[in-house]
């Protein structure tokens, strides 16, 4: 009895030693090696594809941001700023586009709250952009999976051109051109879906001079 117990204990100690060996190889050496190579060869990507202004980071090109007006007294949710291209709705955190709290709404395909929210968003976006409600594309009225989606559909980007140009006193043709330059096609021609990166687009938009 004691002999077999000792055997069991020895067996588990060997198992623990194997786990510790693997922890050193796979849990310490491997990520350090990958990080070393990544920081040596691809530091820009490895550090989050940051966009900088005068050396100061203002965005990750991969993480969406809010482009809202400052919260006024009595308001609970801030209003979108007409001077910026607007991203998709977000379910990340209380303030949206919060990278400390990524995630989706998880509302079901027939959830009454979701259906109502989509209808409200459609009305609001159509009024904001001055278009017919039926023409507002799906990505403009739905929250993404991550809540940090930096992209919108080209259709939603083009829909916003006139509003943005007017708010900024810019030539709509120039803004339209800027959007067209930011439409990213599918990698290899067939992977995923086309989109416009709102973070990059707005960053370049800020540099456009009024006519």
């Amino acid at each position, binding site marked *: 009895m004691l002999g077999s117990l000792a055997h069991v204990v020895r067996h588990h100690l060997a*198992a623990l030693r194997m786990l510790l060996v*693997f922890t050193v190889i796979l849990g310490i050496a491997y990520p350090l090696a990958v990080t070393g190579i990544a920081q040596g060869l691809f530091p820009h990507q490895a*550090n989050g594809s940051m966009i900088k202004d005068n050396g100061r980071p203002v965005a990750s090109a991969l993480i969406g941001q809010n482009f809202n007006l400052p919260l006024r007294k009595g308001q609970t949710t801030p209003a979108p700023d007409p001077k910026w291209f607007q991203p998709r709705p977000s379910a990340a955190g209380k303030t949206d586009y919060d990278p400390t709290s990524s995630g989706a709404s*998880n509302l079901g*395909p027939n959830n009454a709250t979701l259906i109502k929210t*989509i209808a409200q968003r459609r009305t609001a976006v159509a009024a904001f952009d001055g278009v017919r409600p039926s023409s507002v594309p*799906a990505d403009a009225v739905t929250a993404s999976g991550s809540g940090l989606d930096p992209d919108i559909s080209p259709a939603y980007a083009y829909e916003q051109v006139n509003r943005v140009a007017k708010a900024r006193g810019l030539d709509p043709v120039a803004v339209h051109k800027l959007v067209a330059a930011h439409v990213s096609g599918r990698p290899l021609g067939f992977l995923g879906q086309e989109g416009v990166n709102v973070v990059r687009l707005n960053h370049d938009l800020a540099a456009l001079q009024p006519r």
Partner: protein
Amino acid sequence: MNATLAGWLQIIALVGALALTFRPLGDYTAHVLTSPRHWRAERLVYRVGGVHADAEQTWPGYLRSVLAFSLVSVLFLYGFLRLQNHLLLSLGMKPVSSDLAFNTAASFVTNTNWQAYSGEAAMGHLVQMAGLAVQNFVSAAVGIAVVAALIRGFARKKTDWIGNFWQDLTRVVLRILLPISLVMAVVLVAAGTIENFHGFQSITTIAGEHQSIPGGPVASQEVIKELGTNGGGFYNANSAHPFENPNPFTNWLEIYLLLVIGFALPRTFGKMVGDNRQGYAIVAVMALIWAASVAVVTANELHSVSSSAGHAAGGMMEGKEQRFGIWASALFAVSTTLTSCGAVNSFHDSYTPGGGGLTIFNMMLGEIAPGGTGSGLYGILILAVVAVFIAGLMVGRTPEYLGKKLRGREMKYASLYILTTPAIVLVGTGIAMALPGERAAMLNHGPHGFSEVLYAFTSAANNNGSAFAGLSADTVWYNTALGLAMILGRFLPMVFVLALAGSLAQQQPVPITAGTLPTHRPQFVGLLSAVILIVVGLTYLPALALGPLAEGLH
């Protein structure tokens, strides 16, 4: 290019890439599992680890090693999670609560990677890389080790020996998982996935607001999360998060990685039993089920079938990323639920009743098309045993598979395997639904809420790990119940698989005669597919009727 053509090309390119690696990876894996020679690095691991890697083991000995390694893994990871605040790189994260630590330790050791926590809010970098990601490697290798033992049961004759667990484990880690991960992690970083040790970086945004940008050794963990069909995300949003999966190329690569070992293992099987055609028949069944599932989920999502929200929005984009769209999201969803991966690039809770329902059904199939690393192949081989047995009953002959007789003893193990997971799923779901407090954890109401609970237990017991994430599962009850479901759903089937392996290995093979059922022909592919669908359909139909079917027909 229009979206439909692009969508099809994306699938065809994936199938092509998997076909290209089928032979080389399958043959290489067979070599790794049968080579008489150790690498010098492996000898060092055995010596430091203090294990005998040369002595062959009987099935109980092999099982004891699997269980011992898994038990110390759970305890070690539990301790790690409870003490993370005292460790380096903790980012100021608090110790994980005891029930959540149990759930998470069980989850990663069982290759499930169910996550009742949010990565960016709960885990420091060290616990992610040296705790969770280590299990991503070794739990995947344990699955391959167990299927190697089963294949040896078919391939060997008149012996009690079915291999050595420590040797299988170490070789799979060092010769297969680690080299592929190293290369692919660098590819992911080049394409935009992050890899650093930063904490949250505070920035002032373009519009002048405040935002915290997270950091972390993400790419190194992302690769093995897919390759080892683990699925546990570095961040809460998993592969929908732009830092894990920044663009359509990384997305396609991640889908490829999570399928590649599962689809190549049938080649390993054919090679090791000395008849490649046997492997082709198995991979054909896997591919058929996968293709059918891709078609159905994609069609449901494209046409917003039975979804009022989808029709209101003009497309099923709730919970999906713009850069992936419907096609690449559906492809990921099917692949992740038919393997035991469980990573997600879109949130299944918001899928159409048909699309989301099929992701549940995919898991109910038992993760076999192609399934988790190793576990997928042993799962479908058990079903092949059942199919051969049923065919034998039809013609009134003692059934045999690969020359081994399927007698009462073998069928007992196969039957126990088949019954275990559904019992855990249905009993667990039933108990949860009977408790008012646990019912209240649903986010959505009605049949869809039931689907959230059914999904949770199906995912846990089948070691998938994805979720209808609306369910608030971080409660003492769910953490405990789902933790137990994961452990029982992982290790009970392994007991039966290894027992079957031991029983088969002892047999003297019977010669093939005119009366032997050929198991490499299209006829068998059809038979096995039908058996899978009938067994699973009959088991789960009532539960599915209360959830996704009720919602879809409403």
